[in-house]
């Protein structure tokens, strides 16, 4: 650009420059204006500018610059200005570098070759300057692209932090990965903990079937780069890809997914190798995706936990509504009863039914299962007992009716153990059915403790089952203890059960309410901090 002009040509140069300057000041892309300036300055009928781009010639002037037809530009190129087919060809150089060629057609007769030399000198400087400014612009574009990568990583981190929808998360990561690596295609697969495919998103390629984690055979280091021949074994699911870059999405303890892009594009349509920067960028995206997947999973777990908590709350609410708040007052009897639900809400149920003639019916039941299903079954049993109690003539008949009711109406095959008793305080006669329930304890006034064993199978367990009704007489001072297995099977830290023997020893001559307190206190002390998973129910009945 700074090559000195011939000193004798200063005036002529000034004249040509004025013509060129006027032409360059017009509208349109610079190559077209350069050609136009050359035509105006020389009086040529037509001018064409060829630019040297990456060791190839490009003809300007058309809407889209294109390579000239073969043979249009002489090869090898003659030195300096030359004439060919009646056209004058001017090499446009600056700083010893050839930047372009100008073809001038039909120059007016007598046009000085010196003018052409000066013109070539001037326009060479113009084209070189234009090229330099384009290089500056490209460098600026590259810088902006790097800034965009950094901004994208930052934005992705922000948006994924609150992204709990895995599908949206996959799109976000995949789109940015493809965009910032200039890939033509890409895919992102996420796997379940079992390794099964959870979801797969794909852009620009045909996905060949679904694959599980094992199908995506990434090497140990977790990256495949530009190895077209390993693409099929890498499990790349994009059809017809030439070069791929794939990284694992790793969460603690497992490979949660694969992120892959393929066929890096260039402006001229070639497929380029992915760069180390691309690999680093993709790995960073995969890391961010892994973090977001973990967040989404933890959120899902938290929601599930909350759902269970709500369910337990509901179950506990149902149970609280059903259990009697007070024990009845019955002449000739002292009664105490208590239920201590566990966090898991089992299915203990006790109830009293004061009947005519001062009689009292009562029951302690333990239904199978836990949570809402158990609470609903308790609710069904509660309704059945209240419906049938006045209909049945004997305890055994009542138990049979409840059994049939459950067989008919309970949603799922559930069963319960139950001690059902009917006591006449005046005579002390207790008629009872123990449907597979724990042995009740009968403490005689003498202090001896007897066990009252089951008289049949649990209710709801077998169709057409029958229960034997038995009776026993409670003398004055005798006390009956009916309980659920949450008492006797309470565990301590050493996994030892509280047991029937400990409960028997607590059956003293104290009033029922006091014994009740003692039993619950003893069970609590015994269990210590060990969590208990069964409701604890105790019903005490003393014939005073």
């Amino acid at each position, binding site marked *: 650009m700074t090559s000195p002009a011939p000193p004798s040509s200063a005036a002529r140069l000034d004249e040509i420059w004025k013509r060129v300057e006027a032409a360059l000041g017009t*509208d349109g892309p610079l190559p077209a204006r350069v050609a136009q300036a050359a035509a105006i300055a020389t009086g040529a009928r037509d001018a064409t500018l060829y630019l040297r781009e990456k060791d190839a010639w490009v003809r300007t002037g058309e809407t*889209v610059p294109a390579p000239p037809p073969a043979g249009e530009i002489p090869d090898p190129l003659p030195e300096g200005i030359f004439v060919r087919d009646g056209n004058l060809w001017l090499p446009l150089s600056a700083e010893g570098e050839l930047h372009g060629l100008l073809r001038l057609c039909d120059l007016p007769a007598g046009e000085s070759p010196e003018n052409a030399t000066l013109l070539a000198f001037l326009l060479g400087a113009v084209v070189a300057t234009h090229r330099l400014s384009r290089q500056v612009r490209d460098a600026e574009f590259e810088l902006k692209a790097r800034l*965009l990568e950094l901004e994208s990583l930052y934005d992705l981190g922000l948006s994924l932090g609150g992204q709990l929808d895995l599908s949206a998360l996959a799109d976000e990561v995949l789109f940015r990965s493809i965009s*910032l690596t200039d*890939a*033509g295609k890409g895919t992102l697969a996420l796997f379940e903990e079992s390794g099964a495919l959870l979801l797969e998103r794909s852009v*620009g390629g045909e996905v060949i079937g679904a694959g599980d984690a094992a199908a995506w055979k990434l090497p140990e280091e977790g990256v495949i780069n530009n190895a077209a021949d390993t693409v099929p074994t890498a499990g790349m699911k994009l059809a017809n890809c030439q070069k791929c870059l794939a990284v694992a999405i790793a969460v603690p303890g497992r490979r949660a997914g694969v992120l892959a892009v393929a066929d890096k594009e260039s402006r001229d349509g070639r497929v380029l190798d992915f760069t180390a920067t691309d690999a680093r960028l993709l790995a960073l995206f995969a890391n961010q995706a892994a973090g977001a997947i973990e967040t989404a999973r933890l959120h899902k777990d938290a929601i599930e936990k909350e759902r269970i908590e709500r369910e337990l709350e509901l179950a506990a609410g149902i149970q609280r509504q059903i259990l009697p708040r007070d024990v009845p007052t019955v002449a000739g009897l002292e009664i105490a009863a208590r239920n201590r639900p566990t966090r898991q809400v089992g299915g203990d149920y006790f109830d009293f039914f004061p009947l005519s003639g001062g009689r009292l019916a009562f029951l302690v039941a333990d239904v199978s299962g836990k949570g809402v299903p158990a609470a609903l079954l308790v609710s069904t049993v509660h309704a059945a007992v209240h419906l049938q109690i006045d209909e049945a003539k004997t305890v055994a008949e009542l138990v049979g009716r409840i059994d049939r009711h459950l067989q008919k109406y309970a949603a799922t095959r559930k069963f319960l153990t139950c001690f059902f008793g009917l006591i006449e305080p005046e005579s002390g006669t207790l008629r009872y059915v123990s449907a597979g329930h724990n042995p009740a304890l009968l403490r005689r006034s003498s202090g001896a403790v007897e066990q009252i064993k089951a008289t049949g199978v649990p209710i709801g367990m077998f169709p057409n089952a029958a229960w034997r009704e038995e009776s026993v007489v409670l003398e004055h001072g005798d006390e009956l203890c009916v309980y659920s297995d949450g008492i006797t099977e309470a565990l301590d830290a050493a996994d030892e059960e509280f047991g029937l023997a400990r409960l028997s020893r607590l059956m003293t001559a104290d009033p029922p309410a006091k014994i009740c307190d003692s039993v619950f206190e003893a069970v609590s002390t015994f269990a210590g901090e060990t969590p208990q998973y069964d409701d604890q129910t105790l019903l005490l009945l003393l014939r005073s």
Partner: protein
Amino acid sequence: MSESCKVSSERRGDVAILWTDGYINNQGGEEIAREAYSQLDQGARALVLNLEKTRIVNSIGISILIEVLEKVMDRKGALAFCGLTPTIDKTFRIMGLAQYAEIYPTQEDALRGVNPQPA
């Protein structure tokens, strides 16, 4: 998402609206450039590029859009974008496209922007 970007256009006075559908990469950018140059050659003064069906743009696509923008500016015309996703919006702003082309939320806004006094 489909592999190839589809471009359609419509003239409204001296404004051409171009709708893209798909990935604006090399192929997508070329499609846009072809359609844009065709519209310019047919006398369009301003272009509105509606990208509401595009979710990915790469740097090749952006460089082609810059070429289109330069061509429009050479002709003293105007170029406006609309329907950009937040990610593409930010991309265009960082890459300098928003320096010479306006970005509008909707097509109507863009049309008003490039043609303040519609016929």
